[in-house]
């Protein structure tokens, strides 16, 4: 009985918070826009009995998905999102790895403090922190003022409302998700392995490439997925920091939903986004499983 409960609870959770909403979104994506409330048809009306159900299913079609292929806005948005997500994942890795490495090298008594500093930003609202970047990156913002005061530049740089600002925002926001798994992997690394590598003729640098990097691979992969997956559907950061030409699927989704009130097309966009994400999510799960096997 207890075992049943233990298994049942996570599945019930999954059912209630993922599968049912997913089914609803899928259903809306197969419906048509209507001037009604909610703004789509057909609606499932069980009072009509069997006939009602038949009519309901007859009303569903793939028109919205076909529509997505007719306007190149959509696939361009998907492609641009993937590009931005990939680039920001790589940038986050380049920034996060040295930080995680430094944390592991730091004396033991410093580690809790450093860990705290990595997690600290989560204590304030994500929205406020992204807004704060507007103030930093604006033409008259802190960054430009500082650079001009130092004499590095004479004209303010245009960063805000460009893709650069989006990269900065994503790297900043998701950095802890990159640092923590890499830190966990590096912390487990047995120091005598590096000594063994040196003993066998490696320089410090080649020991890093041949031992440290491969042995922290699982952390790198985990961190990259934890950044890539949310970055792909990111809406707030491109909305607040990106320009009018920053094309991301999260923004398209928002516009379809709230500006156009076209729920069915918005749902279709969401379903395809999910389909794109399924591949990295499965790869991520496989990585986690492999790690568990290697440790087990």
């Amino acid at each position, binding site marked *: 009985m207890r075992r049943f409960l233990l298994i049942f609870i996570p599945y019930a959770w999954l059912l209630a918070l993922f599968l049912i909403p997913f089914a609803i979104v899928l259903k809306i994506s197969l419906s048509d826009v209507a001037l009604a409330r909610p703004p789509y048809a057909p609606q499932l009306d069980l009072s009509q009995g069997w006939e009602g159900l038949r009519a309901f299913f007859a009303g569903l079609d793939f028109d919205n998905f076909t529509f997505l292929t007719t306007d190149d806005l959509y696939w361009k948005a998907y492609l641009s999102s993937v590009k931005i997500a990939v680039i920001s994942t790589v940038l986050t890795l380049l920034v996060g790895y040295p930080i995680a490495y430094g944390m592991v090298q730091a004396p033991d008594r410093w580690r809790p403090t450093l860990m705290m500093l990595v997690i600290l930003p989560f204590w304030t609202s994500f929205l406020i922190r992204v807004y704060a970047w507007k103030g930093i990156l604006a033409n008259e913002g802190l960054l430009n003022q500082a650079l001009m005061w130092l004499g590095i530049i004479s004209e303010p740089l245009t960063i805000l409302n460009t893709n650069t600002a989006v990269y900065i925002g994503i790297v900043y926001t998701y950095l802890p998700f990159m640092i923590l798994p890499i830190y966990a992997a590096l912390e487990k690394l047995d120091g*005598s392995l590096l*000594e*063994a*590598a*040196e*003993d066998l*003729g490696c*320089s410090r640098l080649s020991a890093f490439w041949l031992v440290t990097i491969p*042995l922290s691979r699982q952390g790198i992969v985990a961190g990259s997925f934890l950044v890539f997956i949310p970055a792909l559907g990111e809406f707030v950061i491109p909305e607040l920091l990106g320009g009018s030409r920053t094309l991301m699927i999260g923004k398209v989704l928002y516009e379809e939903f709230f500006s156009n009130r076209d729920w069915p097309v918005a749902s279709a966009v969401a379903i395809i986004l999910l389909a794109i994400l399924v591949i990295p999510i499965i790869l991520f799960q496989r990585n986690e499983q492999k790690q568990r096997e290697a440790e087990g």
Partner: protein
Amino acid sequence: MSQTGAPAVFSPWTDPEAKPLIRFRGVTKRFGDFTAIDNLTLDIYEREFYALLGPSGCGKTTMMRMLAGFESPTEGVIELSGQDIAPVPPNKRAVNMMFQSYALFPHLSVYDNIAFGLRREGRGKDQVHGRVQEMLRLTRLERFAARKPHQISGGQRQRVALARSLAKAPKLLLLDEPLGALDRKLREETQFELMDIQEKTGTTFVIVTHDQEEAMTVASRIAVMDEGRVIQVATPAEIYEAPNSVYVADFIGDVNIIEGRVTPGEGAVSIDWAEGEPPIRAVTDAQLAPGQSCHFAIRPEKVTIDRERPDRPNAFQGKVIDIAYLGNISTYHVRLSGGQMVKAQMVNARRLANRPITWEDEVWVGFSETAGVVLER
């Protein structure tokens, strides 16, 4: 040790012409204010199998790590082939170390672990392959070449570590408790394997162990250490038969230690050790002052046990308190009339039922004048 004419006994340390491969001169290593190695001076010669023996925490690993280059001495100089090695980084030393934890690379196969050092030397593919095959054969690991370290047993892992450290044919191989994780039988096998490898390759081995039997089996010389100092360096036989201190006598093998005061005499000294007991007579080279306190150390197997008073220079009466039967031998714990306990060992040449001495028997223990050693400290 004058065996002139006999086939050359391997003992370069007795040859004043011989140049040591390694030379520690006044080496001290401190961690903060803790002294791990205290003013160490010793020589290790080429082709030696040099064992460092001592209790846990006495500085054996630290000494190895200084040789490998992972620690540098706080004071003093370490020379390898006459060169101070302080400025040479670990990856440039002709020294390889087999780590106490093996430190095998978990992401590489057995083959790639062994090839690791060879590939760093920029040798050709065929050359690397040939050498790895040779090492696999030597350590009998051919069948496991493709496995990852977590897919093989502890004993096999230990052999991989050995093969990996041998692959580059170092001048000096450091083995830090290489056999600690093995069960007794496998350990004994591997000890002989090690000696065999050493003979074949001519490498100089320094082995750390806290197992005295292991040191006795494999070593050409043993250094007995305590708290960062070397107490005695000698061949296994000398260490056993002629320890220079109570510490060494007690550390190696089983021993009876009797405290007393010396009366010098011609040939042998007399040691007064208990009221109402005759003094122990012992031959010694040590120059002892009359009345000086000393310890007399004697191995149990050099003490005989009889029902009748034996015709020996030293004979004392006592009672059997305990008998430890070990199969091939038995150890008798005898309480002498003065209350001291003495262990005597006898080979069980006869079957159990035929042996005359048993618990509570009144017996005599005896030994010759040369059976034990007189120790000043």
